[in-house]
């Protein structure tokens, strides 16, 4: 015990004596620790935010295609549906006794690169994300009129729109718009609170609104000037949609999920596909997860590089320290003490690297949190060190000890073979 504290004291003084090299070593270990832990934090946050893009929805139904494709367009507003669902089919399925609610969605138009989604009031009632949160209005109210639109938080912020703003919807989803429904402008009546999900990048309006801007279209082509109808003319017409793109389903009981899914998939009227959003999200994340794994592997290598830097620093100092070892031998240090001294130095450097790395991590997270929230919709939660973090830190300390064996072993051998010869 006494010896250990002596060795610790000597190791500490010796590290301090070479403080520039030590500081650089500690810094490089610290940076690698920060990277490793930071990647983990952000990927955890990204994952949980991703998985909870939709919550409380039991099934998503769309025209038959791939499960991922349906998820992409219905939830992430990425890509397009191959086919629509007939309004009659939707009505029929929605009446299923197991089903408590449905949210129809109709996609296809956009505004300055942001997708426009037609839906019903049920969207505000039943749509949930994250930990079962409902959508909240930051300003204004839900859409009620034909030409009302409710903006996602990012849309309003990026485009600088407020309540009362008049906007026109473009046909199709490309940013290079070929056709603009400029004869029927919409008015912003509400802006949603930020959710960190694709909802933030969506413009919401009624299904009838979507129908209204397309009612005078013929065979998917814009009307000729003489055929086009004005907003007031349109509002007199029957605007029940003929098709929708997909719909979200809430069931009475989770137990019914598979039977309802089967019934939808076997629906005779047209080919449909019902997916479990949780399962599809997991599957999609596994696709993206490859990048996640790559990041982890890279940052582990960075840690290794940091530790090898330490090895270099200790090894190169060994020769000039042979004299020091002989002195220690003369005052009673055994070769094992010399071994322990060098191990402790490695451990000290690694521990300081870890502590500094954790400090860096929190400073960086604190600095990055607003940026991540703003640009990626990722909400970092400031928690203490997780089980995983501790394991990583212990692993690094252990790796430092293992790597430290090399210089310690060399010094041990010098101590045995040099005797008291103090070679200069």
């Amino acid at each position: 015990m006494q010896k250990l504290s002596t060795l610790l004291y000597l190791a500490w003084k010796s590290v301090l004596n070479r403080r520039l090299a030590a500081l650089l070593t500690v810094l490089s270990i610290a940076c690698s620790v920060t990277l490793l832990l930071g990647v983990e934090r952000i990927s955890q946050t990204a994952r949980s935010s991703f998985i909870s893009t939709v919550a409380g929805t039991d099934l998503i139904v769309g025209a038959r295609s791939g499960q991922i494709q349906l998820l992409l367009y219905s939830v992430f507003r990425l890509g397009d549906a191959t086919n629509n669902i007939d309004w009659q089919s939707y009505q029929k399925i929605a009446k299923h006794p197991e089903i408590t609610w449905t949210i129809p969605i109709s996609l296809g138009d956009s505004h300055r690169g942001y997708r426009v989604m037609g839906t019903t009031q049920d969207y505000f009632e039943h749509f949930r994300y994250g930990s079962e949160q409902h959508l909240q209005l930051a300003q204004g109210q839900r859409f009620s009129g034909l030409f009302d639109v409710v903006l996602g938080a990012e849309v309003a912020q990026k485009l600088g729109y407020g309540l009362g703003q008049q906007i026109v919807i473009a046909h199709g989803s490309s940013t290079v718009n070929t056709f603009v429904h400029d004869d029927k402008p919409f008015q912003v009546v509400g802006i949603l609170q930020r959710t960190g999900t694709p909802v933030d990048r969506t413009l919401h309006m009624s299904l009838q609104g979507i129908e209204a801007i397309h009612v005078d279209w013929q065979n998917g082509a814009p009307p000729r000037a003489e055929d086009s109808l004005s907003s007031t003319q349109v509002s007199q017409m029957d605007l029940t949609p003929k098709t929708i793109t997909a719909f979200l389903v809430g069931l009475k009981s989770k137990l019914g999920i598979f039977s309802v899914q089967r019934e939808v998939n076997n629906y005779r009227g047209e080919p449909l596909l019902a997916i479990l959003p949780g399962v599809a999200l997991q599957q999609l994340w596994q696709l993206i997860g490859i990048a996640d794994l790559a990041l982890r592997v890279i940052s582990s290598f960075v840690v290794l590089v940091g530790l090898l830097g330490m090895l270099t620093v200790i090894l190169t100092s060994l020769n000039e320290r042979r004299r020091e070892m002989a002195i220690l031998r003369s005052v009673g240090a055994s070769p094992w003490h010399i071994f322990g001294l060098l191990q402790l130095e490695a451990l000290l450097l690694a521990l300081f690297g870890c502590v500094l790395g954790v400090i860096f991590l929190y400073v960086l997270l604190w600095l990055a949190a607003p940026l991540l929230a703003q640009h990626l919709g990722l909400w970092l939660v400031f928690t203490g060190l997780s089980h995983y973090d501790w394991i990583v830190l212990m692993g690094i300390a252990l790796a430092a000890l293992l790597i430290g064996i090399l210089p310690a072993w060399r010094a041990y051998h010098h101590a045995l073979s040099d005797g008291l010869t103090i070679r200069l």
Partner: protein
Amino acid sequence: MSECLAIENLQFAWTDQAPLLNLPSLHVEQGEKVFLQGASGSGKTTLLGLMGGVLQPQQGTIRILGHDLQQFSQSGRDIFRAAHIGFIFQLFNLLPYLSVLDNVLLPCRFSLRRRERVESQGITPTQEAKRLLEHLQLNPNTYQRPVTDISVGQQQRVAVARALIGQPELLMADEPTSALDADTRDAFIALLLQECQITQTAVVFVSHDTHLAKHFERCIRL
């Protein structure tokens, strides 16, 4: 007077080298001051390593204070050395990262025996270190300074204080004066021997310099 150091039939060779030392017999009494003269490269430092139990002879016995060093385990020899022998080297005796005072205190950190011997006099190791440094004419304002701040002559006196703290029975000095000029050299040896006289410490002083023999009771050629 009783025996402090006894060597019989000692033979030693470094690995892959011709035999370096062949010493039929060497005896040092307790409190005796012996000068060991030998040319450069004759194996003086090697001999001190053997006597300190840092190196192992291929043949022969080394007895210190009646203990055969061969009978000890490796760590036993380390403990024994720390407890009973003080060393002074040619140059760079001190750990560059410790202060003057902390360098002197090193043996008390590695040897319980030496610390206890200081404490049995009712003083702390730090007090004893300061007392020794003062005796060796070191200015108190240097005690907390890094050893790199003081002159070579001062460094060698700090090394003497370190070798003597906790009253080891045997002091081994390996050409401690080779870096000093003629005047300081004689003063240094006089001071060293005077300190050892007080504590009745035996001295084995090795050097190639025959002029130093006059300070010692006995001179042996290697």
